[in-house]
């Protein structure tokens, strides 16, 4: 009765989806992540505007800086916005106290020989975190260069190079050029996607584990298996909870799409963030493939366990491999086509996150990533089939202590 099974799977899908999105945990997590995003998008820049600095401008020094020049090195320095020449140390200290300037630099008469400059500042915080120090470095470069250098030379002295990258492949061919910023702009979304993927897969498959274990523990499962097939139950549950996970990712991506343009004005590094459509398609494909693998494993563990507690303990063993690529990101991203990265790509439990990390690292072997996706998807389908059998067999293990032997015996008995 395939028609009935499909209809039953749809009913279970609807019920599981609706139950999942009504759960407090799902709602808190779904809202919590965007709240953090918005915090970084709007609140953090506001805080940084208030307390931070923007000392990168070429024609200004950012926050007001006062200086006293005893060496005459800055005698011919043209006025710069935010840079205030002060004659007496007492006047400088007063300007500091009044908040007219953030830092006061005193250039001694032997500066050219010693390079030593006195830096007066107010309040707490490390001087190394105070951008006025870097800003005054640039002031001194301009001052020392004086008329000996052209404006362009002074600019290059301050900002020596902006690298443009060319990749040369094994055949000596050069691909399209990009900048370091572009590279970070492309790598960052893949890394963020890997994190989101992992979180969402964990939430979805964790919910499935909980759902199966609870239904077994409260005997609801006996009502279900006499209403429909174990495959319809498993497919309905997995798709229902998977759809809830996908909705979660969609909400996060929407919030990110709205908030990143806002945040990119505040953080120059983010202005180059670019999300290729290919990456979104790959991420969704990996979400499903990875989710099926984990969901099937979680459902099997839930079905074969005798309590929620026991199931949670065992599930941790399965969860650990998924986190490995995140921990190993420092090895995978710099070397995306190395042995470790390649091995993890073809192991279904690590493939989704490892593949995202390889994309973040700019892998030259995208075909391996696609192949890893196929392997993960096939593993997901096989594990789904197996989990339906384990789910059915799990009924035999009411109150029994789980062992590989007992699960195998139950599997054989369940047919």
């Amino acid at each position, binding site marked *: 009765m395939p028609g009935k099974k499909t209809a039953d799977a749809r*009913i279970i899908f609807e019920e599981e989806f609706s*139950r999942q999105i009504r759960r407090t945990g799902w709602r808190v997590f779904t809202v919590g992540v965007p709240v953090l995003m918005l915090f970084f998008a709007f609140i953090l820049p506001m805080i940084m505007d208030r307390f931070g600095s923007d000392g990168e401008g070429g024609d200004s020094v950012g926050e007001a800086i006062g200086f006293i020049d005893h060496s005459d090195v800055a005698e011919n320095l043209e006025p710069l916005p935010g840079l205030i020449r002060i004659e007496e140390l007492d006047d400088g200290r007063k300007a500091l106290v009044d908040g007219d300037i953030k830092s006061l630099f005193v250039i001694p008469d032997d500066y050219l020989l010693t390079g030593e400059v006195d830096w007066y500042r107010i309040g707490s915080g490390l001087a190394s975190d105070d951008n006025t120090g870097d800003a005054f470095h640039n002031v001194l470069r301009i001052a020392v260069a004086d008329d000996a250098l052209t404006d362009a030379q002074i600019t290059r002295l301050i900002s020596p190079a902006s690298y443009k990258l060319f990749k040369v492949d094994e055949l000596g061919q050069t691909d399209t050029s990009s900048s370091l910023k572009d590279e970070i702009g492309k790598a960052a979304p893949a890394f963020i996607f890997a994190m989101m993927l992992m979180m969402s897969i964990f939430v979805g498959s964790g919910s499935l584990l909980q759902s199966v274990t*609870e239904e077994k523990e*409260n005997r609801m499962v*006996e*009502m279900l298996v006499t*209403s429909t097939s174990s495959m319809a139950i498993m497919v309905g549950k997995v798709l229902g909870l998977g759809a809830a996970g996908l909705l979660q990712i969609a909400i996060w991506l929407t919030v990110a799409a709205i908030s990143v343009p806002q945040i990119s004005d505040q953080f120059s590094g983010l202005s180059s963030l670019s999300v290729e459509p290919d990456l979104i398609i790959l991420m969704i494909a990996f979400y499903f493939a990875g989710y099926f693998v984990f969901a099937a494993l979680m459902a099997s563990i839930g079905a074969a366990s005798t309590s929620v507690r026991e199931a949670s303990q065992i599930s941790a063993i399965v969860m650990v491999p998924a986190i490995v690529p995140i921990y190993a990101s420092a090895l995978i991203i710099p070397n995306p086509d190395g042995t470790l990265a390649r091995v993890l790509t073809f192991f279904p439990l690590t493939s989704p996150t490892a593949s995202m990390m390889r994309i973040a690292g700019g892998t030259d072997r995208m075909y391996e990533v696609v192949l890893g996706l196929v392997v993960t998807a096939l593993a997901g389908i096989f594990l789904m089939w197996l989990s339906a059998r384990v789910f059915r067999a799990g009924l*035999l293990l*009411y109150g029994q202590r789980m062992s590989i032997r007992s699960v195998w015996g139950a599997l054989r008995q369940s047919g």
Partner: protein
Amino acid sequence: MAYALEIEGLTKRFGNKTVVHDISFSVEQGEVFGFLGPNGSGKTTTIRTALGILRQDAGEVRFLGGLSAEEAMPRVGYLPEERGLLRKEKVSNVLRYLGRLRGLPKTEALDRGLELLHRVGLYEHRDKKVEGLSRGMTQLVQFVASLIHSPELIILDEPFSGLDPLNVQLMKEMLAAEQARGATVIFSTHVLSDVEEMSERVALIADSRLILFGDLHEIRVSRGANAVVVEAPSHPSGLPGAQKQAGRGGQIEYRLSDELNPEMILNAYASAGIVLSRFEQVLPSLNDIFIEEVSNARQKNG
């Protein structure tokens, strides 16, 4: 004869242990059938195996005139022995969910669930979460779930255990109504009075084997009378065999044995010149049969 359930040679083993041993019986359509057995005799495993929850090691099971368990399930209502529902869900949502899985459209599943909740007096609890109900209430909700799709065959595993007498009576009335509608009811129990009250036919299992099956009255008749009740103004002394006061003052029940038969009792009263106002041979009760058969089976199986 159309059967609602036919079981032939059903055997189920867990490892080396046989928990259902070559059991065969059939249930006629439209009857209320009692499935009897002491605790741990294999009743629940027989039901689970018949329903296809567990896979049988041998034997055949046919439902509703020859259907497999899978084919028949949409027309079968089942109340498991171990109760439980989705604890965090509202009662009405659970009933709607189970009703839909048994083939009812969404709205109809909810309406039918609410109608049945009315009948069992739980309508005002429809929006409560299952975990907020008492054990008896949860059992009634689960009972309602087994009837929600008006099944042709209703299988109830220990349906009355844990319920107060009022709810037991309510459940019996609803099952009688289901039978009147044309449904077949099979229920397992070890409470013999429930079977005597509700069933005409029974199956009795002990130690995983079927030891008795058939019409309850015929079974009792086939055993012959095992007691005689005598009502008289006085009673002779010196009759052998167990005696007990049966009800009111002038009535005595003599347990029959090899040393005491009805003729000897009649002769004793005649010799004493006592006029009898009642002399009745009593068939064995289901309780007597149950104890005798189960004890014999246990002796036989060591």
